[in-house]
């Protein structure tokens, strides 16, 4: 599966990269809707999905932008096994963004499906 994915990625690099950029924030919001998570945890969860593989550390500028937009907030918590952890949690605004964007993506997908299945005329 990984080999198929990497071949696919080479052929479609630019398009996939642009597509992913638009959905990373949505992916993070969907994860945080389940429960608060810290950066490493979010990266690990995203890395389980091949399309959302992120280099360690890349998530932090994205999270910062989302905090600035007030889609998520954060709090610090002591960790038993190392430095303090910065946990992120979704805001009400973030919840609205999920509904809005998921709806937009469904409409986009349905529109593309329609074009795919429609008559040639």
């Amino acid at each position: 599966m990984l080999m198929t994915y990497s071949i696919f990625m080479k052929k479609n690099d630019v398009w996939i990269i642009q597509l992913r950029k638009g959905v990373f924030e949505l992916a993070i919001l969907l994860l945080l809707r389940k429960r608060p998570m810290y950066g490493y945890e979010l990266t690990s969860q995203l890395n389980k999905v091949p399309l959302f593989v992120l280099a360690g550390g890349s998530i932090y500028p994205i999270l910062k932008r989302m905090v600035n937009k007030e889609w998520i907030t954060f709090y610090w918590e002591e960790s038993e096994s190392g430095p303090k952890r910065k946990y992120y949690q979704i805001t009400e605004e973030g919840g609205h963004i999920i509904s809005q964007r998921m709806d937009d993506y469904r409409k986009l997908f349905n529109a593309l499906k329609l074009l795919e299945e429609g008559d040639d005329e």
Partner: protein
Amino acid sequence: MMNRNGMLNRHIKIDQFLEQLSKKLVNVPESEKEQHLLEIEGHLHALVLEKESKGENPEHAIEEALDEFISINDLALQINKDYKNKEHNQFGEDYGFKTVMFLPFVGFGQLAISIFRGELAFGAITVGLLFIILPIIGLMLPQIKWDGKRVDTLKLTGRYFVTIISSFGAIAFITRSILDRQPNYSSFFYMLGYLLLAIGLYFFFRHMYAVKKQEL
């Protein structure tokens, strides 16, 4: 379980990474830099622990964690870019906020008039207290938006506050005493009150800084 050497290696290599990253975060206010670095340190720490739990030896775990991590240059570029964009969009040069932070200095200048005169100058005291109290109220308003730069300005103000304000008071007292050719005791007591107020305001700035830094 990490051995002593393993712990030492982790601190040196990860600390070096963080030190180099810190130097490259040129657009990030100091008050926010520490938080970024702490967060990244936590991430690296968790990554190393994960690898050790899979049987890697501590040295390799650290090397691999750092190899897998985004490069210092790329990470710094992304973080700096975000702050540069924010600068243009949010507060610009922020002259309004800086003016508000400057007003207490003007206020204490007014209060120093009583020290210089050796008698209470009620007009100057009223104006001085207004110049001190109104900015304090303003800073505590929930409508004020705080970012790293404003928090840094708070820190800088607090740092120089006591030195500059004490100097005003001391100069006013010494000048009065020179003019009178003897120590002016009224002036001295006004100066004590003035310094107490300055110290109170210093602790207020310090407290605000600690609170706002946590909220960043």
